Structure formats: structure tokens, C-alpha cells
């Protein structure tokens, strides 16, 4: 029985798959950035100049081209984050946790964008910045879920534990998303009505749909770029810390 502890430094990049991921991500990022900028500019062009003025809502409705894709991504990114968190727990894969951690800020940002654009739009449409309608409320809860995720991660300074604990929270929150979503039926729904009447104008629908889709793909590419950048930073930070400790600093 012998302690073979010779203190050869752990190669962190070898233990977690980040090693291969890091350069790959580096190559992807520039393409995503270019695509994102191009599509968002094109989408805004369609939204601001190509789409005709709405005869009911005037020019204000153009905010829809930011609002709707942002709202979609706020929810989509949460589910994605929960998925990565779950994978992390099952496979105990560091990279998965890092992905989840990196997605959260972008998701929260889109949530905030949807909320802000929504209430900017709400003032002329409903005469109030905010109403307690199911759609709006569910979006607000989503923001709180993101905030909870950050807060928990910030409060635990053992990285390993922070990863796992916040992953559990993300998963639990994901169960909650559909519950909140279906509560729409049981509530006063100012938001739905407005959107439906808008979508009835048939001439506009195709242009609008095109604009929103272009914006959505642009947001998607943007998200990928930002998330990859964040993961790369995270890998570097964790790696340099590991190196620092092994040098006995």
C-alpha cells in the first residue's frame, strides 16, 4: 500500500472534453457573428421599411419584429439551458454545465428585451405600461427563474457544487414553464386578443412572417456566438485556476 501521489498536474483539458471544443468554437464564432449582423440588419430593414404601415396601429406595431423573436428566444433558451443542465447531471460532463451557465445571461437578456419592448408597445395599445395578464406575467416569471439561477450560482463559490445545484434548479424550473404557459386559459388574456386581431390582416401576414423569421434566425446566430464566447472564457478561467493551484501558488 503506497501513496503514489507524485503531484503531476491534472490536465484539465484532457479530463473534460473542452479540449476539442475550444478550438472548434473559436472557428464557429466569426461566422455566427457575421450571419447574425447580416440577418438582423436585413430583418430590421424589412420591419422598418418593407412592411406596410398598419392601418389600426400606425407605425408603433413595427416593434413586433423585435418583440416576438425576443419572446420566442427567451423561452427557447430556457429550455435549452435546462436540457444542458440535465445532461450535465446525468453524464457529469463539465462542458454541459458550462453551456448551461453560458446560456443563462443571453436568455435573461431576451426576456428583458421582450418585457421592455412589450411594455413600450403596451403604453399606446392598452394605455398602460403593464397589465397583469397571463402572457405578460408568465414572461416575468421566466425572468425570475433566470434570476434565481444566477443568484444560486453566485452564492455558491465551489464551482463544482454551483454547477450541480443550479442544474437541479434549472430542471425544476423547466417543469414549471408549461404549467405557467397553460395557465393562460384560466386568466384574463388581454395579450392574446391583441395579437390575434393583428394577425388577421392577411395582406400583411407574409411580409411580417418573413421579417420575424429573419430576425429570429439572426437572434439565433447571435445567441450561438455569444454563448460560445462565454464558454471559451469559462474554459480558460477554470483552466488557469487549475494551473495556478497545481503550481502551488
Amino acid at each position, binding site marked *: *500500500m*503506497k*501513496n*503514489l*501521489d*507524485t*503531484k*503531476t*498536474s*491534472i490536465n*484539465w483539458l484532457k479530463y473534460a472534453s473542452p479540449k476539442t471544443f475550444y478550438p472548434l468554437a473559436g472557428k464557429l464564432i466569426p461566422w455566427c457573428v457575421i450571419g447574425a449582423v447580416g440577418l438582423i440588419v436585413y430583418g430590421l430593414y424589412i420591419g422598418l421599411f418593407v412592411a406596410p404601415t398598419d392601418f389600426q396601429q400606425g407605425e408603433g406595431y413595427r416593434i413586433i419584429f423585435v418583440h416576438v423573436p425576443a419572446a420566442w428566444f427567451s423561452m427557447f433558451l430556457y429550455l435549452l439551458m435546462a436540457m444542458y443542465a440535465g445532461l450535465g447531471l446525468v453524464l457529469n460532463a463539465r462542458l454541459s454545465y458550462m453551456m448551461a451557465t453560458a446560456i443563462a445571461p443571453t436568455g435573461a437578456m431576451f426576456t428583458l428585451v421582450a418585457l421592455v419592448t412589450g411594455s413600450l408597445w403596451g403604453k399606446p395599445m392598452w394605455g398602460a405600461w403593464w397589465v397583469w395578464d397571463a402572457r405578460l406575467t408568465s414572461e416575468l416569471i421566466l425572468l425570475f427563474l433566470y434570476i434565481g439561477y444566477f443568484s444560486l450560482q453566485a452564492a455558491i463559490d*465551489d*464551482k*463544482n457544487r454551483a454547477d450541480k445545484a443550479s442544474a437541479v434548479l434549472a430542471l425544476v424550473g423547466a417543469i414549471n414553464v408549461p404549467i405557467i404557459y397553460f395557465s393562460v386559459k384560466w386568466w384574463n388574456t388581454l395579450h392574446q386578443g391583441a395579437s390575434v386581431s393583428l394577425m388577421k390582416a392577411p395582406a400583411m401576414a407574409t411580409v411580417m412572417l418573413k421579417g420575424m423569421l429573419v430576425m429570429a434566425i439572426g437572434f439565433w446566430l447571435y445567441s450561438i456566438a455569444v454563448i460560445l464566447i462565454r464558454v471559451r472564457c469559462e474554459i480558460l478561467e*477554470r483552466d488557469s*485556476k*487549475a494551473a*495556478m*493551484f*497545481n503550481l502551488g501558488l
Partner: protein
Amino acid sequence: MGFLASNHVLIADNLVGVRGERLLFEKLNFELSNGTVLYLQGANGTGKTTLLRTICGLSKPYAGVVNWCGEDINSLAEEYFKHVLYIGHLPGIKEDLTALENLKFSLALSGKAISANQATEVLNMLGLAKGLNLPTRMLSQGQKRRVALARLWLQELPLWVLDEPFTALDVNATSLLKQKIEAFANEGGIIVMTTHQEVTLNVPKFEQLRLDA
């Protein structure tokens, strides 16, 4: 003691221990059979507590496997806990309950019932006769430790994992505990322990493992 009659083996297989981002021990291997005391040594912060918690399944090793009687403790899960008694830095007693209540609850957790008489006898033997009806909050540091240690006399489990068990004990209690450890090993129990005090134990197999920074 019937529960010590069969053969038990605890094997550490290439254990790697990491806390935070720091490597504590690497490629640790050992095999402990009936009657062995493994005495962990090492300066403060070298990973003794971490290793003990890994052995009893509270922490997962960064790499490597702990085996109990040929099976990975991870897959044994609760089955493994039927065999391990762990006493760590923290006493694991409720300050609002009396020594007796605490002892009975500890035993219940491992699925054992015990008569009040028998429990009282052990507590008296440990010099706690006077404090039996006090909430343990009112006991001194050393008395609390004695309450926590009382389980060693009653919980019939074949593997003990003890983190600095002599802390805060006076001379008298120290010698009682030492005798108990020796008796247990002589009957075939396995013990993994650490302490910064000098110990000489009269046991069948005494192995030392030094963790170093």
C-alpha cells in the same frame, strides 16, 4: 459479535481526490480486510477529511472507485450504508434533544431499535450520567463528543470511519475510546481513522498512510 464474523474487504482503487481546483491525492490504492486499522496521517489540509468522506460515500471521488466486498459503493448505494459508521468533525447530535434521545435516533437511522436501559448503560459508562436529562446544548464540548461517540458501543456495523475521534476528549474518555477501538478490531472490524495525537493501538493489523502536500 455476529456481524463481524463474515469476511469484509474495503478496497480503494486508484482514487483521485480534488477539492475546488486542487489535487489532493492521486492514484491511491489500498485494501483493508477484517481486523485492520488504517491510520491516515498528514499535515493540516492534505485531504484526510476528504478521503474519509469519499470512503464512506458522502463525496464522490474525482476518479477511481471504492469497493466494498467486491462491489462499487456507488452502485451499492443505501446497501453500503448498512455497513458504515461515520463520525466526522461535526458531532451529528441535535442540541435540543437529550443525550438519550439523540442516541436512540442515531440508531433508528440505521434501522436499529434499542431499549432505554441499554442506552443509558452506555451513556453512564461514558461518564454522562449527570447530564442524561439535559438538552445536549448544555453539555461541554467534550461531553457532546462523548454523546456522538456512544454509537460506537451500540451500532453493530463492520466498518468505522472516524475523523479525529479524540478531539476534545479528556484522558479518561480517550482511553475508553482506545480500548473500544482495539476490541472492535480484534473481533474483526475494519477502521479508517485520522488523528493528530499520538496513538499506539494494539490491533491485528495496523497500517499507516501518509498524505502529503
